């Protein structure tokens, strides 16, 4: 692919300048010549091109695999027992198989964003034309850092994105192919492919987001993006309500447009779950956000939605059934999520509305976005008076009566991903006390597995939300609408303090909050680090969750902190596909602050980010394959990621060994010498057991070899301070991070000096760090 070779053969081309017949053109490269930045070594890199870089990381951060299952069941030779060092019929061993599973997850993740980006770009081109410019606003010159970095092209118009998408699809296909039985076998090469999947995933996401920002005129690098209503309680229950669910926003936008066109704004509520909600609020001032995926059943069963419109990704797969329960009408809009429904795309809108409202067809499939807008609104208006917000919530009496049927089999507890004490809450309920059920609401992730498992078919999830109904209706918060990219001005201001370490770090809260406590702990962590003047970036469901908590003054973190990409900022970039603005900020620092060439220059930039930019990702409740590939995109770029304990289910961690000095040498680009720089960053992929552990690790993983003494002192202050707070003592690895006495935080000087002495600490050098010998300016020896 590095020589991606476009060619066209056509019978007839019509351009503004006339018609050409039987034109045939071959083009060796598609690189613009007018762009002054030289093409780096790896334009459109294939799987193998960055393998060396990956191996460098993988040698420092060895995978620790945790198989979900002793078996492999990938082909009809299987199942194969891979316990311990057994090999499967194809010759694979357990490490290989685990890495292969991780690759599968990441390939699915990357494919999902790529498919999303492709459908979005196709749609936008159809609606707005292929020449729509890709402006990210006045303050953003580097519109697509990932596309530039990886592909080596500079997209100017929306059609330029298609070249990059072709590349991503090509690579996804090769990656998936490597999973076939009897292909790759070595864990290390599987892991390198995992990183590759992550890299192209960031390209795909970036494409999706810049396309929609440009065309729909979402906030463009706007630190003051408006505050938006958030929570299960923000919907006006008296109005007809449309619920949009998913990630690919055009159908939701068509609904908003139709309402605007028909002067119905204010008469119909439009609220959303997951990223479609986030993206809709970047477009429309009247849309509302209910919450993340785990809020799906809560909100639907509350009965407020009259029409449910789903697009793709993170859409609970049995919503047709759930919609039926509450008499809501159901519209599917994506070819990736058809749910067996009749395709009504080519029928007149009114006929579809009739069939829905009359109950002839409780659900339909419509691929025409505009028609979705019309049908959804008309159907909502028509059905709302009829169904009168039918709900499936239950009265205390119903719950108490039902609970008495429990046979105490514990199946609910055993089915719950977090082993929540459902049975005990039910048994209390049978005795008339619903408080335990209501308490579960806080921790429950809305998966309904308990319900599905119940021996006597109690609607357990409904019990939980019914018991907590009051709490649910009181959930009214604010979130800052997704602002999109970080502006060049912001980068110019923070580039140096970040690279020098004076802003102690950039912490990105991303991914789903689909594990217990996610809801409470994310806002707490955000607050802690914003207070400490880290830069906090957020996206997707994590961004919502951060907003779902109010301090004593009734303020969410979005109201409490500013939205600039600067110390102490709480910066919601947008939906999941906005994540590349976070990684992209690091790339931009390399370009704008450090003047590195980024064009097709992945390895050098990753090396730069890895050694200099104290960024860390936190995915506190991530559950999806997309989350896996997003994380691996961060890893390849040299940004460590922390997950909650549930993250162990991703089946492997990438852990450094600070006890092995030999692992932590870099080249000094100035001298060509190998220099010990300490375990910085110590890990690349890490599960924290508790939020306290996570907070300590966040602070530590922001440490980078390039920190100035001032920067290192600031970072150590936070690390040590948090460590002391949560462990009651000094951390046992300070000596690895203190290079000279000037690195020591002033306020802890004596204590640390004593500690260093006890450890026999010696002064260390501060190099111009790199893992790439080719970047040494002076030849060694």
């Amino acid at each position: 692919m590095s020589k991606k070779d476009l060619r066209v053969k056509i019978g007839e081309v019509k351009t503004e300048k006339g018609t050409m017949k039987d034109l045939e053109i071959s083009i060796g490269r598609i690189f613009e010549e007018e762009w002054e930045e030289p093409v780096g070594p790896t334009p459109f890199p294939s799987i193998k091109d960055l393998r060396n870089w990956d191996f460098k990381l993988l040698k420092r951060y060895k995978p620790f695999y945790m198989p979900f299952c002793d078996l492999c069941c990938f082909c009809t030779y299987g199942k194969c027992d891979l316990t311990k060092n057994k090999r499967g019929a194809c010759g694979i061993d357990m490490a290989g198989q685990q890495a292969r599973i991780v690759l599968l997850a990441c390939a699915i993740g990357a494919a999902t964003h790529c498919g999303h980006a492709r459908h979005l770009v196709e749609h936008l081109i159809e609606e707005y034309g292929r020449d729509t410019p890709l402006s990210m606003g006045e303050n953003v010159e580097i519109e697509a850092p990932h596309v530039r970095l990886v592909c080596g092209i500079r997209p100017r118009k929306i059609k330029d994105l298609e070249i990059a998408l072709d590349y991503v699809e090509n690579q996804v296909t090769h990656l998936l192919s490597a999973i076939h039985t009897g292909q790759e076998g070595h864990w290390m090469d599987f892991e390198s492919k995992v990183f590759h999947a992550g890299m192209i995933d960031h390209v795909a996401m970036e494409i999706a987001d810049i396309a929609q920002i440009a065309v729909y005129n979402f906030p463009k690098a706007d630190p003051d993006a408006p505050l938006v209503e958030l929570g299960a309680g923000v919907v006006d229950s008296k109005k007809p309500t449309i619920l949009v669910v998913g990630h690919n926003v055009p159908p939701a936008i068509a609904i908003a447009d139709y309402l605007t066109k028909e002067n119905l704004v204010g008469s119909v509520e439009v609220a959303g779950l997951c990223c479609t909600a986030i993206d809709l609020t970047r477009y429309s001032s009247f849309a509302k956000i209910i919450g993340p995926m785990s809020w799906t059943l809560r909100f639907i069963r509350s009965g407020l939605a009259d029409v449910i419109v789903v697009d793709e990704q993170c859409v609970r797969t049995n919503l047709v059934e759930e919609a039926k329960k509450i008499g809501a009408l159901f519209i599917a809009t994506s070819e990736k999520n058809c749910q067996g429904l009749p395709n009504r795309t080519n029928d007149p809108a009114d006929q579809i509305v009739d069939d829905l409202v009359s109950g002839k067809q409780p659900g339909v499939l419509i691929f025409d976005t505009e028609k979705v807008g019309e049908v959804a609104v008309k159907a909502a208006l028509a059905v709302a008076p009829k169904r009168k917000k039918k709900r499936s919530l239950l009265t205390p009496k119903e719950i108490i009566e039902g609970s008495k049927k429990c046979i105490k089999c514990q199946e609910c507890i055993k089915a719950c991903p977090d082993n929540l004490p459902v049975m005990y809450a039910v048994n209390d309920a049978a005795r008339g006390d619903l408080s335990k059920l209501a308490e579960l609401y806080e921790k429950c992730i809305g998966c309904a597995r308990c319900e599905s498992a119940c021996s006597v078919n109690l609607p357990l999830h409904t019990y939980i939300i019914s018991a907590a109904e009051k709490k649910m209706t009181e959930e009214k918060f604010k979130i800052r609408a997704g602002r999109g990219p970080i502006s060049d001005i912001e980068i110019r201001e923070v580039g140096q303090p970040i690279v020098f370490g004076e802003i102690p770090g950039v912490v990105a809260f991303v991914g789903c909050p689909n594990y217990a406590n996610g809801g409470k702990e994310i806002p707490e962590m955000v607050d802690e680090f914003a207070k400490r003047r880290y830069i906090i970036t957020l996206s997707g469901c994590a961004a919502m969750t951060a907003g779902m908590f109010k301090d004593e003054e009734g303020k969410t973190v979005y109201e409490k902190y500013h939205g600039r990409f600067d110390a102490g900022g709480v910066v919601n970039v947008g939906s999941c596909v906005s994540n590349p603005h976070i990684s992209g900020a690091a790339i931009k620092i390399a370009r704008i602050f450090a003047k590195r060439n980024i064009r097709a220059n992945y390895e050098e930039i990753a090396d730069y980010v890895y050694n200099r930019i104290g960024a860390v990702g936190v995915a506190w409740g991530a559950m999806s394959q997309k989350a896996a590939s997003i994380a691996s995109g961060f890893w390849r770029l040299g940004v460590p990621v922390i997950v909650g304990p549930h993250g162990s289910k991703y089946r492997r961690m990438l852990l450094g060994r600070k006890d092995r000095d030999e692992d932590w040498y870099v080249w000094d680009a100035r001298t060509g010498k190998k220099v010990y720089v300490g375990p910085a960053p110590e890990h690349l992929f890490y599960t924290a057991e508790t939020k306290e552990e996570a907070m300590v690790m966040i602070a530590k993983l922001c440490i980078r070899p390039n920190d100035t003494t001032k920067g290192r002192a600031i970072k150590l202050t936070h690390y040590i301070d948090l460590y002391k707070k949560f462990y009651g003592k000094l951390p046992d690895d300070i000596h690895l991070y203190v290079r000279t006495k000037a690195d020591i935080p002033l306020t802890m000087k004596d204590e640390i000096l004593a500690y260093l002495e006890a450890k026999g600490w010696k002064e260390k050098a501060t190099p111009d760090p790199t893992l790439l010998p080719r970047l040494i300016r002076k030849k060694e020896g």
Partner: protein
Amino acid sequence: MKLEPYQKAEIPGPSKAFAISNAKLLLAKIKKAKKPLMIIGHKSLELEINGKLLIDYLVEIAKKYRIPVITSTPTYLEIKRRGYETVYPMNLIEAASMVKDPSWTGFDGKGNYDLVFIAGFPYYYEWLTLSGLKHFSSIETISLDPYYQPHASWSFPTMKKEEWAKIINELLE
């Protein structure tokens, strides 16, 4: 008392933990071990058994048999508060990845551990870590939770808490 994962779906595969049925077995394991280790999770601060927290049972065992403990925060503070000092702050999977490495010399610099007790973590978290050790190390692992952890070498079956307490109390006698 069933050899069934506490998380219904977390079926390990053909290789499953043997059941711990009495205190004698545990005692024998401890005696035989050259260098045992215990890793304690924060759920031990929540789980009450016979009016006593899981962490208290675990710390008592560690104390009595002089087993060094690895734990994270906030558990670390809680163990210290209980007057046990041979406790090292470390993340569970970090610990597992060290223990897995035969060349790791442990906290005393004298060599790796050969028996790992583990308890008090979110079920799946412990389950997966044990899986990692089962497949990629030869360390013996024993779950002390009152429910079945099939990826361990040895585990209690999922059992009544009183029965569990009886066995543990015997061990503490």
